[in-house]
């Protein structure tokens, strides 16, 4: 019958919530076994379930609950003392009830499982006979220290018929200390930090209930909220249209401004309805941590912080699995066994902290353990072994970048592959899942101290700030978090030009070389043979790879409310799904409707970059000159040169094969020793060779006009010194054969590069000269 189905549906929802509450109470009770409020609450929950399922005729459920209620009654009345074994038994009861509820939900019936064994054990426990020897946990003093509640509160008995109004996401005392059974922690534990997060709706804490309290929340179907958010999105668009259309009409301006203000606030309020506190997720973790710690034979203390941090409810679901995996990792691989910890001088109980907080428009969640940590060297060696990176590259990488290798599929530095994790299939999935919602994850670790994994996710996916650009006659949107800066492409004064290396155009930006993509060509919107010399380059960063997107123009807003306030190029757009037909392309993450009614696609830069092999083209964060991939067209052997201007204004070319990297130095970083100049880089000194001096100029140190000079660091095989130049002009191919015999000491000859005859430095000779030159 339809009516009955609806009631059963509600019953299932409420029962699930009650069980969650029950589970939390049980785990918390382990830390505070005599807490009367919790015991009463647990009893009431099971009692309610028993009553309701009897009403529906769910006899199996009713029987199980009845046996559970009997045991709980004795606990509540103080005839039995709560302990670890009872906790496990009652959690088993929770699981059993969940199993039956699942059966009801999927098949309509209670299922075929037999719970008579469980019922017998429940009865035995109620009679005071337990199968495993167990002692009561802790002393009363410890209980009070840990509780931070409620010892003084009277137990409130409420009439059992009250349908328990468990508010979803009700916060609890967050700390949960777990121990392997059945040993009792001999040394008193330090009182775990009891950060009791506040709910967003101000529901009363279960620990201090002094009477019936009216619940200020209501239950609303999520789809209704989504409809409201969609409608508000429409309103925002219509408002934009109105604004543009009525800009000239003074009589309407006042009313339009009012509409504008109200719509803005309505939008904020609507967005808030989609937000939910992360406590929904956090509240599940105490039990998971308890079970895992038991299985792995560890002692783990869980600390939760910031459970009231809010984010989009759809995102909460999506980070559940990744966070769970990170917790598993921390317990299984991070935190050491009690013996190991004692030997290392650490407290035997490991500490696992979960912290959530808002930070610059994102939600950051940190998972930190004080376990054995991960050695950077081990990760680096493993990465080299697996061919993920060369030894030379790895030597120059920061620790943070090296730790990123842990997220590669199949990468695992765990010594023994355990059942729970360590199979190396986990971390790459964690990263993929988090990235799929627009987030990032990174690791930092110190051997012997611990590990911290930081997950960052956007607050919401529905309304985002974006740049709207035009290219090849089309409008496209680029989500703002990718955008680093905007650079005008000017051919005339040569400040930002795109250098030509066949197949891989690059832009010189200050002292970096950035690979560049022409958007119109990329998307097949326009064809050309000569590279455009005007337009705007949007510098974006995807997964630590920086590249530039050349577009025709960046559309500015008119009358659109901007968040940053500084730039008028930022649009606040409503993201709409593009549907199952286009989403698999992986190029667009959605679409939006502009004020004029036109549809604009939102670019998925990561997908686009992968399709165009952008990450493979360059690694510019190390300021390495771009060495493009071998492409089919360029089979000619013309060498490439780095064209520079010396301190005395001369133009020279350095064969790119000898160039390791480019670095900028300040005048005060230079050291002089006799007539030689050195620059300090990190912990060693690099000798500077002045190409003018090579040519015979006097050895006086060059005038450094703005205090900077560019060092062209040479490769190790020619000595690893650096050429000191004033600025980098370009990277280009030779346009003529080398003409020798014209140059002097230290020069290979002259050739045509970038349209001008340029002297080419003989790098090995220059290096040899530098090592033998003596002071005059």
């Amino acid at each position, binding site marked *: 019958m339809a009516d009955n189905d609806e009631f059963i549906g509600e019953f299932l929802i409420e029962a699930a919530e009650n069980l969650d509450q029950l589970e939390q109470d049980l785990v918390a009770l382990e830390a505070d076994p005599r807490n009367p409020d919790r015991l009463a609450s647990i009893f009431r929950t099971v009692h309610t379930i028993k009553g309701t399922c009897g009403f529906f005729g769910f006899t199996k459920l009713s029987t199980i609950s009845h046996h559970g209620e009997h045991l709980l009654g004795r606990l509540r009345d103080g005839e039995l003392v709560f302990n670890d074994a009872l906790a496990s038994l009652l959690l088993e009861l929770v699981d059993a009830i969940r199993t039956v509820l699942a059966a009801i939900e999927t098949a309509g019936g209670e299922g075929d499982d037999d719970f008579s064994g469980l019922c017998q054990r429940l009865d035995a426990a109620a009679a005071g006979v337990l199968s495993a020897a167990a002692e009561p946990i802790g002393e009363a003093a410890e209980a009070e220290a840990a509780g931070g509640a409620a010892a003084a509160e009277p137990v409130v008995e409420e009439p059992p018929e009250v349908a328990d109004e468990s508010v979803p996401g009700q916060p609890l005392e967050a700390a949960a200390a777990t121990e392997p059974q059945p040993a009792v922690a001999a040394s008193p534990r330090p009182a775990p930090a009891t950060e009791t997060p506040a709910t967003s709706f101000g529901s009363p804490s279960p620990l201090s209930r002094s009477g019936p309290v009216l619940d200020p929340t209501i239950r609303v179907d999520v789809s209704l909220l989504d409809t409201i958010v*969609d409608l508000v*999105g*429409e309103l925002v*668009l219509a408002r934009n249209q109105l604004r543009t259309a009525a800009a000239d009409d003074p009589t309407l301006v006042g009313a339009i401004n009012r509409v504008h203000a109200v719509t803005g606030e309505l939008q904020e309020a609507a967005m808030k309805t989609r937000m939910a506190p992360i406590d929904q997720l956090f509240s599940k973790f105490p039990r998971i941590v308890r079970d895992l710690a038991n299985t792995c034979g560890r002692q783990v203390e869980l600390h939760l912080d910031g459970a009231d941090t809010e984010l989009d409810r759809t995102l909460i679901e999506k980070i559940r699995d990744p966070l769970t995996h990170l917790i598993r990792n921390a317990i299984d691989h991070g935190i050491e066994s009690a013996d190991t910890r004692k030997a290392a001088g650490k407290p035997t109980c490991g500490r696992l902290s979960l912290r959530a907080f808002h930070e610059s428009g994102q939600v950051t969640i940190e998972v930190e353990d004080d376990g054995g940590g991960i050695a950077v060297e081990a990760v680096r060696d493993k990465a080299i072994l697996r061919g993920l990176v060369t030894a030379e590259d790895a030597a120059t990488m920061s620790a943070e970048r090296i730790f990123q290798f842990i997220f590669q599929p199949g990468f695992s530095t765990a010594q023994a592959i355990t059942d729970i994790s360590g199979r190396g299939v986990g971390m790459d999935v964690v990263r993929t899942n988090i990235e799929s919602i627009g987030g990032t994850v990174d690791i930092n670790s110190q051997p012997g101290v611990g590990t911290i994994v930081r997950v960052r996710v956007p607050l919401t996916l529905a309304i985002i700030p974006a740049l709207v650009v035009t290219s090849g006659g*089309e409008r496209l949107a680029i989500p703002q978090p990718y955008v680093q800066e905007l650079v005008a492409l000017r051919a005339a004064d040569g400040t930002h030009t795109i250098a030509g290396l066949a197949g*891989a*155009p690059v832009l010189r930006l200050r002292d970096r070389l950035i690979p*560049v*993509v*022409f958007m*119109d*060509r*990329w*998307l*097949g*919107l326009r064809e*050309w043979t000569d*590279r455009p010399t005007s337009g705007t380059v949007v510098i974006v960063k995807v997964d630590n790879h920086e590249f530039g997107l*050349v577009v025709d123009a960046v559309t500015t807003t008119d009358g659109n409310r901007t968040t940053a306030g500084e730039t008028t190029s930022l649009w606040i757009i409503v993201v*709409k*799904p*593009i*549907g*199952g*037909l*286009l*989403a*698999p*392309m*992986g*190029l*667009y993450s959605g*679409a939006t*409707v502009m004020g004029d*009614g*036109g*549809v*604009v*696609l939102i670019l998925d830069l990561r997908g*686009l970059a992968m*399709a*165009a092999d*952008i990450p493979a083209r360059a690694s510019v964060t190390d300021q390495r000159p771009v060495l493009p991939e071998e492409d089919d067209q360029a089979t000619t052997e013309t060498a490439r040169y780095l064209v520079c201007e010396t301190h005395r204004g001369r133009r020279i070319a350095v064969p790119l094969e000898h160039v390791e990297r480019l670095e900028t130095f300040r005048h005060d970083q230079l050291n002089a020793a006799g007539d030689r100049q050195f620059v300090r880089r990190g912990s060693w000194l690099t000798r500077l060779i002045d190409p003018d001096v090579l040519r015979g100029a006097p050895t006086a140190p060059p005038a450094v006009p703005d205090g900077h000079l560019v060092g062209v660091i040479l490769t190790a095989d020619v000595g690893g010194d650096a050429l000191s130049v004033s600025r980098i002009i370009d990277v280009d191919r030779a346009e003529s054969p080398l003409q020798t015999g014209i140059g002097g000491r230290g020069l290979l000859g002259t050739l045509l590069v970038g349209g001008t005859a340029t002297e080419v430095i003989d790098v090995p000779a220059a290096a040899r000269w530098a090592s033998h030159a003596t002071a005059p």
Partner: protein
Amino acid sequence: MTLSLPPDGPSSGSPSFRWCSFLVADRCFAIDAANVAEVLRATAVNRVPLAAPAIAGLLNLRGRIVPVIDMRLRLGFETAEVEQPRINLVIDLRGEWYSLLVDDLLDVVSFDPAAIEAPSGSRSGPALDAVVGLLSKPDGLVHFLDPERLLQSLIVTRVRGLSVG
């Protein structure tokens, strides 16, 4: 989020015998009328760069983004020599909307499903894979289309070899 053939939906073995018929390149096609959500005149669409050629673009239907499929291209015909006003037949497939851009709309008719024959192998080609039934009528052949199959072949999962210029 790829489309997959539904186990049973309104378009397969449907008990409703009403079909929405339309013209594409002077041939008559029909789909289950239960799938049709709306009919509009052809309006401006936004190109989707790098999508399959048969995807004409996206249109904005009261705030909802609807992909438009050019039925001439999808069914293997050439684009019309003369620009003619066309019709958007908006269908609802499991909650998602798609618009079929057809030449002209014909009537909603009832055909006896028993009279519909399965297409023989010789008639079908890759473009006509969505034709699941044929019916001979005095004024021509009516081709019955399965909307799921219509869309399935348009899904592109790998876009490779983008030229960066």
